[in-house]
């Protein structure tokens, strides 16, 4: 199953959902879309608005296609599954600013997780063949956690 998620941001993300709907007939796997506040209802694949947690869908999916949100961090750090991110863009009125573009490009450079900036790059061939699992270097993460452990001990001594 390919799971597509646009999250809970109040602005529409029709660009992604329409594109997936368009290419769905040529994709070999079943596609499920979490469409959030986007009004467009896909005709060629199943979809739903919201769920308490997207975790079970992430678990079931073979491939995840998602908006480039910070909420993906946990997925990026701990799931060993292919991921493609499509950032919401200000010029399409999908977000207030372009921080998702910034994050998507960073993720791609840092981990190899594919960022789709031009929606035409999202092709049936890409979805059918994308199997790349990002390798995450967790050294900076451990370093920050260790720093906080030390910091908390220091503050406790001081207070």
């Amino acid at each position, binding site marked *: 199953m390919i799971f597509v998620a646009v999250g809970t941001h109040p602005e529409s993300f029709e660009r992604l959902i329409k594109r997936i709907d368009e290419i769905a007939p040529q994709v070999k796997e079943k596609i499920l879309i979490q469409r959030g506040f986007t009004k467009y209802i896909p005709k060629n694949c199943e979809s739903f608005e919201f769920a308490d947690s997207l975790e079970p869908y992430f678990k079931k999916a073979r491939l995840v296609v998602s908006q480039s949100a*910070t909420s993906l961090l*946990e997925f990026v750090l701990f799931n060993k599954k292919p991921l493609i991110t499509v950032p919401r863009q200000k010029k399409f009125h999908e977000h207030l600013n372009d921080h998702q573009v910034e994050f998507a490009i*960073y993720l791609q450079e840092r*981990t190899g997780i594919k960022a789709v900036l031009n929606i035409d790059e999202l092709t049936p061939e890409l979805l059918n063949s994308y199997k790349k699992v990002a390798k995450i270097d967790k050294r900076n993460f451990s370093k*920050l956690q260790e720093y*906080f452990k030390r910091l*908390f*001990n220091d503050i*406790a001594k001081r207070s």
Partner: protein
Amino acid sequence: MNKDSMNIAFVASQGGHSGQIHILFTKKVLGKYGAIFITENQKVKSGYKVKEKSFLKKFRTYFFPKDHLQLYPWRYIQETLQLRRVFKEEKIDCIVTNGAQISIPACIAARSLGIYTVFIDTVIRVKTPNWSARACYYLSHLFLVQHQSMAAKYGNKAKYEGGIL
């Protein structure tokens, strides 16, 4: 005075900011210290709601109204006073905040009580500083960024000690 116990308040708005707090501050990182978590929820219309045993399945979470500060600036004062009361009641020794808007009244409330105030910038900003972080740059005792390149964009006080990614 040396003491073994300490209470930390983690403060972050809903979504990605809260997510980063959850990823970073595991039981292992928190160790023997006590904690509360302060966040926002759209279901809360005024004041705040408390949920027991929710943060790390052990500590209290306080929910404040979501995104209401931007529309009604006077609420900054109201929320600062409410947070001040919570910090006092919970005997907070240190706050750690990841943004966004809620971190401003939280830093002011903490500073007014002499509580050690830590701001950690969001990992999602790689190139451009955001405004709530800029405000907290002046309000915090310790200001951390999650990318080496971001430190210079805020100022000399900004420190890089690692990042989630």
